[in-house]
């Protein structure tokens, strides 16, 4: 017994020493302190993605990971000339603008109050510098390379600038003015390799947030409010976006205050329905999953036959996929690719409602008959009608469902999981039958450049000329007509067959922050993410400074006019330094979704 006791003591002692060592090394690791905070600070934490998928790199304009989340993290620090809110384009660094009749000359009137994070004033020369720097450092800014459209930039005065285009560009206000982050000339003029510039200075912008810490290992970004922001008043003091492995669990136990869910996460979202601690908003994901067919005239038989592709389309029960894979967390896709919530959506595309009879009839007509009654059709020349379906492991479940469905119309599918790089190389080489792939950005017609990607085997002159034409058509109705034709053509020819658009949800704790919203047609060029920098701001017109502009603000301003309440900074909706009925009108117009844009 005694020996046991001594042994136990020894062990406890060893454990203590061990703990001390751990504590020591842990203290060495804990050395990296963040900003000092006080209890009254409002800190908002949000899920930035799954571990390993939430490092969107250093959030400077030339180093961020060129996907939506990377851009968004950068956009909290850097402003653009225009921006978007829930209703559409709004002024940002530019207070207002006008465009010449030929659509080639844009004049921007810049905000005179804007300052860089280091205190330097923002002027027109920064805008000119930014555009010319990006043209000079060709390819350094990787987000939507449309800067080539700009012919020249001309400074009129410190706060007026004229941008001239080579040719009219329909989406200039969003795709360029609302996209290019303006960088400070006084910092970047000395930077020769922007892709390697990751000093503290590299994140000095004009945005409503300043960067405190970026941790690549944890995929975490820590921001603090820029209290000198020119275009509103920060309503949070710190914002952290970080990786968690299970968003629902982290939300439930309070580790984070907001998380995004989509598609088959519907089960997690349903658990929050009726939970008073959380609110849910649903948004359009602007994302589509599709099957790509090999349309190559030589290598693509029989998938290069449009009747065959239609047969497959009829043979796939998209409703079932939405039901079984997404649990109803999405909708059957527009066969014309663009999302139903996008303004460019064409509701009249052929829907290919699940129809085994039609599919069978079409296959029969092509001479694919099951001659040996094994359930699988044979080619007229013999041999099973069997195809390889490539997919990344993410969409295997969809693949499994499609495999089962197509078997019912006598088509055998060999499901081959692979990584995207490899699949992409097969697509380029036209060395495949079918592949499953998904992409976002489907609120913007520019995404419909299918022959460029992903349907590189699709070669239709009609389609290509239509696409080119819509690119330069300025008149919105004319352009819409062209985009509609494009969508119908895709639905008819089926170089790709769209499967579903998932829903997207933002679940948040309203106690901490309740201003989350989905941006009209997505942030910037169409990023379907709720992390719009405006959620951190009480903007002008937000008289009660709660981050939302609604009828309460109208009442608040009216009370201020009646001198029942003290005026607030943000009550001055039109920024004329008077609080009067003009501000009320301004707020009401904003609520109606028609914020006045000052055009001179």
């Amino acid at each position, binding site marked *: 017994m005694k020996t046991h006791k001594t042994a136990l003591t020894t062990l406890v002692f060893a454990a203590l020493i061990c703990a001390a060592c751990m504590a020591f090394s842990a203290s060495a690791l804990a050395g990296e302190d963040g900003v000092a905070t006080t209890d009254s600070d409002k800190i908002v934490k949000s899920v930035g993605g799954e571990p390993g998928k939430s490092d969107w790199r250093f959030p400077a304009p030339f180093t961020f990971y060129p996907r939506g989340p990377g851009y968004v993290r950068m956009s909290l620090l850097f402003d653009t000339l225009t921006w978007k809110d829930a209703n559409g384009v709004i002024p940002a660094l530019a207070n207002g603008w006008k465009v010449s009749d030929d659509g080639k000359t844009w004049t921007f009137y810049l905000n005179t109050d804007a300052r860089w994070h280091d205190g330097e004033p923002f002027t027109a020369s920064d805008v000119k510098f930014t555009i010319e720097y990006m043209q000079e450092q060709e390819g350094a800014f990787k987000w939507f390379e449309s800067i080539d459209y700009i012919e020249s930039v001309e400074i009129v005065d410190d706060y007026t600038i004229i941008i001239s285009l080579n040719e009219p560009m329909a989406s200039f206000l969003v795709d360029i003015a609302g996209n290019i982050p303006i960088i400070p000339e006084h910092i970047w003029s000395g930077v020769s390799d922007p892709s390697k510039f990751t000093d503290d200075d590299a994140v000095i912008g004009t945005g409503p947030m300043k960067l405190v810490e970026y941790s690549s290992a944890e995929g975490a970004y820590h921001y603090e409010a820029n209290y000198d922001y020119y275009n509103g008043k920060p309503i949070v003091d710190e914002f952290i976006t970080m990786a968690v492995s*299970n968003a*629902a669990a982290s939300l439930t136990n309070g580790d984070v205050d907001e998380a995004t869910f989509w598609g088959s996460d519907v*089960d997690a979202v349903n658990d929050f329905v009726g939970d008073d601690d959380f609110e849910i908003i649903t948004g359009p994901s602007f994302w589509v999953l599709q099957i790509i067919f090999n349309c190559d005239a030589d290598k693509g038989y029989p998938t290069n036959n449009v009747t065959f592709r239609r047969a497959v389309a009829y043979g796939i029960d998209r409703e079932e996929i939405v039901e*079984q894979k997404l*649990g109803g967390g999405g909708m059957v896709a527009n066969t014309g690719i663009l999302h139903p919530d996008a303004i460019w959506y064409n509701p009249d595309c052929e829907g290919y409602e699940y129809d085994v009879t039609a599919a069978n009839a079409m296959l029969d007509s092509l001479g694919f008959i099951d001659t040996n009654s094994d359930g699988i059709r044979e080619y007229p020349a013999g041999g099973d009608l069997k195809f390889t379906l490539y997919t990344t492991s993410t969409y295997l479940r969809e693949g*499994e469902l499609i495999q*089962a469905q197509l078997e019912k119309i006598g088509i055998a599918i060999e499901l081959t*999981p692979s990584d995207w790089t490899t699949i992409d190389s097969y697509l380029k080489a036209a060395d495949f039958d079918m592949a499953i792939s998904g992409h976002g950005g489907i609120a913007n017609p520019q995404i419909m450049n299918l022959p460029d990607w992903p349907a590189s085997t699709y070669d239709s002159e009609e389609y290509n000329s239509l696409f080119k034409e819509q690119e330069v058509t300025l008149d919105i109705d004319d352009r819409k007509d062209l985009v509609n034709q494009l969508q119908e053509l895709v639905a008819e020819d089926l170089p790709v067959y769209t499967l579903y658009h998932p829903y997207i949800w933002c679940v948040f704790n309203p106690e901490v922050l309740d201003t989350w919203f989905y941006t009209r047609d997505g942030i910037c060029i169409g990023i379907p993410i709720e992390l719009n920098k405006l959620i951190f701001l009480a903007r002008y017109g937000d008289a009660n400074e709660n981050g939302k502009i609604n009828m309460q603000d109208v009442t608040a301003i009216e009370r201020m006019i009646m001198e029942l309440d003290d005026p607030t900074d943000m009550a001055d909706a039109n920024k004329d330094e008077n609080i009067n009925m003009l501000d009320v009108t301004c707020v009401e117009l904003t609520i109606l979704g028609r914020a006045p844009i000052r055009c001179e």
Partner: protein
Amino acid sequence: MTRMKVNDVLGSLGLGILAILVVVAIFAPQIAPYDPHHTYKRMERPSSEHLLGTNDIGNDILSEVIYGTRVSLFIAFMVSITAITIGTSLGLIAGYSGGVAEFMIMRIVDIFLTIPRLVLIIVIAAFMPRSIWNLIAVFIIFGWVMTARIVRSEVLTLRNQYYVESARMLGGSNLYILWRHILPNVIPLVVVQFIMEAGHVIVAEAGLSFLGLGDPVARSWGTTFHYAFECPTLYTSDVWMWWMLPPGLCIVATVLGFTFVGYALEERLNPKLKTVVGMEI
């Protein structure tokens, strides 16, 4: 006295588990209540219809786990039988012939033993298309090593035994001596190695599948486990009980079966020989 009893109990327990698994694997279509690829209402809780509920695309989980036995055991069996054959042959060659062959083989063995095998397998798996055959191939590449080493050292001792010496003096050919005198003595060791290797492979395959590096089309226990781990409500609901626990416990039971049988066999056949029990995961 208790020691021997414990061994016997463990051994028969292990054998029992393995026998059940083999039966389940062979008769999966008869035992499983449903076709594991057929879809029903998704994410159902356990009920009389679906004893373990349904998964994220509405497959019956019980049936999936039952069919998973086939995949897991198939991989384990294929790998073990091949790897052990290779290992035994190389071990025999190295131990019996000596010289350059022995030197080469044993250096390769040393190197393979130095590099953590699952890490290298993960690295290789990252380069290869995901398929069950690739998986089996990679496991075989690493599976023969321990056997070769153990067989070789056994051969070294056997080589100097009287009967082998005398057989050699009587002019027995090398092949004959290997076949008649050495191999039979090595077999018990090889059987233990076979059992151990099979256990290792089951866990390693499950581990790779859990990481998403297995063959996702072949729904082994690891694959089912992988999908359960990805479930968004894993920590906020009870789904883990019927979706994650069954494949997990199947893996544990199998490994235990192999471990117990291996341990009992080892104690019985060669009490002096102790290998580290425990898996590389």
